């Protein structure tokens, strides 16, 4: 148990060290831009994770609030939701990052470096954008309802449950099929999956751009976009539905998607570490030849991994449209959620709980970076800071060596060959 704790501490200390080092190095560039690093970082973290009135790092925990009678009181910041908490928006973004990162992890664990999440994500999104509009109109037509507002309540409630489910299923299927192409090419023709997924991404983006600009375009607005999905397909965000009066959620389109994402994360963890199929997949990923000698059908495992990976990205795309955007705007195809998911998966070292934490942190950093502008700081600084944090986070071995060296220096071993696992 103690060893386990120590292990956890050690794996947690690496990202923390990386973030601190990233901040120190990027402060050089922040200084060059003529801004104060301390102020910039405080602004960035406040914009990313703070509440209203957050100015300094300490405000992230406790924020001073003016009470109604003019006094000042201290409030626990994460629960202070007046005007909407920034974390609500972070969770909205993190919903998608968690799913795309899981998608990447499933592929990586099978030894396939697939980065096709972007393509599967946008195809899932466009599928839902189409069916979320088309399916309800067909149902209204069949039911003989001319005005959706006057539709019978029973029909609407059934549709509210079924339409999103059907849409999600279709998006997952589209994502899975698109990912399967790369898997099939890999297994049958030994085409490098990295290259095929990059190319498939580019194709998917162009397909979506075409669909949004021409056949699915809703009107002649300056920005092309699809028709808004029907209200029955919409996964109503918390601030419009369930928690309408909770101001914490105000302004964020966070909804049931985050719960789905976390449930899926638990399922994926169970699949990878507790099921036979997951075991086969991990073995095939470790060494394909070894797995085959052990009687594991490694080709099937690889294809299964690609299908699952694509379905997860498709799900992310579905939730992005059903819960957040409600339509695909021209330019959404290059919003980069898929690729950010790959980054999150790499930074989280393919651990499922890690993915949830890193996705939230990453979403917060991104939000803080773009919103630096609200503190009159240039947004480009945020990009530099994020890049350095990612760079240092990827230097895993460097930090591991560093920590081990510090540990041995601080705590001289009594036995010459200590056994870390505690086995005899």
């Amino acid at each position: 148990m103690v060893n386990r704790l120590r292990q956890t501490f050690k794996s947690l200390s690496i990202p923390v060290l990386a973030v601190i080092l990233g901040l120190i190095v990027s402060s050089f560039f922040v200084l060059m831009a003529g801004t104060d690093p301390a102020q910039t970082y405080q602004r960035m973290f406040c914009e990313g994770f703070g509440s209203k009135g957050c100015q300094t790092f300490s405000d992230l925990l406790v924020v001073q609030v003016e009470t109604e009678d003019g006094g000042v009181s201290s409030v626990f910041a994460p629960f202070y939701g007046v005007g909407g908490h920034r974390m609500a928006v972070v969770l909205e973004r993190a919903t998608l990052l968690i799913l795309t990162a899981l998608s990447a992890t499933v592929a990586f664990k099978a030894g396939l470096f697939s980065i096709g999440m972007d393509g599967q994500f946008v195809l899932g999104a466009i599928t839902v954008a189409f069916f979320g509009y088309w399916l309800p109109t067909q149902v209204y037509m069949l039911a003989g309802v001319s005005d959706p507002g006057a539709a019978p309540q029973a029909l609407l409630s059934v549709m509210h449950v079924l339409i999103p489910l059907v849409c999600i299923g279709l998006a997952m299927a589209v994502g899975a099929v698109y990912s399967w192409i790369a898997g099939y090419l890999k297994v049958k023709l030994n085409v490098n999956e990295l290259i095929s997924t990059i190319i498939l991404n580019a194709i998917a983006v162009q397909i979506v751009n075409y669909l949004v600009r021409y056949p699915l375009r809703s009107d002649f607005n300056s920005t092309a976009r699809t028709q808004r999905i029907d209200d029955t397909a919409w996964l109503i965000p918390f601030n419009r539905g369930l928690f309408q009066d909770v101001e914490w959620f105000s302004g964020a389109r966070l909804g049931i998607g985050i719960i789905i994402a976390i449930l899926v994360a638990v399922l994926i963890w169970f699949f990878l570490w507790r099921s036979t199929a997951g075991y086969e997949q991990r073995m095939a990923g470790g060494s394909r030849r070894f797995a085959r000698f052990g009687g594991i059908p490694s080709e099937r495992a690889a294809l299964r991994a690609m299908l699952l990976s694509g379905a997860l990205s498709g799900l992310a795309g579905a939730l992005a449209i059903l819960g957040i955007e409600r339509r695909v705007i021209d330019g959404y195809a290059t919003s980069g959620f898929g690729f950010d998911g790959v980054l999150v998966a790499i930074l989280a070292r393919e651990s499922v709980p890690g993915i949830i934490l890193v996705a939230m942190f990453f979403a917060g950093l991104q939000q803080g970076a773009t919103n630096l502008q609200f503190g009159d700081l240039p947004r480009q600084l945020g990009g530099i800071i994020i890049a350095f944090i990612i760079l240092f986070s990827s230097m895993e071995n460097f930090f591991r060596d560093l920590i081990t060296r510090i540990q041995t220096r601080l705590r001289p071993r009594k036995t010459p060959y200590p056994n870390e696992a505690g086995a005899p």
Partner: protein
Amino acid sequence: MSRRFLSLLIVLTLIMVGLFSLGLTSAQEGESQAEWVDPCTAPTSEATVEAVVPQDNSDISFAIILPNPRGDRSFIDSAAAGAERAIAELGVVGTIVETSGAQEHDAAVRRAVQDRPDIVITIAVDAPIIQEIAEEFPDQKFGAQETFFFAGVPDLDNLALYNILTHENSYLAGIAAGMLTRTKKVGAVGGMDTPGINLFIVGYEEGVLSVCPDCELVRSYVGDFSDPVTAKEQALTLYNEGADILYQVAGRSGEGVLLAASETGNFAIGVDSNQDDLYPGTILVSAMKRVDNAVFSFVKSVVDGTYAPGVTTVGLREGFAGLSWDVGVCSRTFDQYGPEDMVAKLPAVRKAIDEAREKILSGELIVTNALEQASQ
């Protein structure tokens, strides 16, 4: 006594001068058809320059969401300039927010609302996004520019719109292109095939044909407002096909068109901001769209308390659209650096433009409004 005499003398002289100049102008009227008097170089002693007194309204704040990063030296920079002018002249607190594309607009507007400024101004943000957010936050005032509600403007108390119509000043730019072309082939490069862009191009093409009915027109669309590389390639193709003047309506992509013109020794017409000085001698004139004025008006309406929801449509008549040659901007860069044969034609061109402007303003000439056509 002497003072009275002196003032009498001055009044008499003034009357004399007045009569004399009147006679002079009436004498000129008969023969001045060929000569065009440049109002920019003419002495304007009577014009009083209003001194700008900075006000202090630091309790009033606004946020402006730009659709793309600054630095297009065109549309977005013009909007940002309007915001900066409002901060400087009205003394309000302003936040200028750049976004990098349509997928960020929604989040940026929502973040701006969280600070509860007195007004949130959006530039070219999509109509349904604004409508949804304005419905969600009924206490927050919104000002939208370059947002087209084709299904009808929603009836909201917190949403004001400015529509700047640019077909008429594009028509004037088209006259310049039609009269100055050497190859009888002119064209336009648009950012995207949308009514908002075609508003410019259709007006321009009508202007060209009004003075040069046998001119050939070419057109291409970049498909992106921040892709100067593609725009340059398209412009090079059009120039190779024999066009010598291109009108760019493509935001930052348009920089590629201007560059292509300068590299091939051809000519271009700038858009939105005064772009005449970017490549002196290459850019004939710029069809200006005063987005800065719209932004400034939004902020001013909040400061004055005259904020009114609904649509305000402005254009050439109200001074929100014009040419860089007009009084007030008076760009004469092309006169200085342009080739001699074209510069020699400029007085005639300006005279034709002035006549067309008067006809447009009097309602005698109606330029096609592509935006209205699209909404029908």
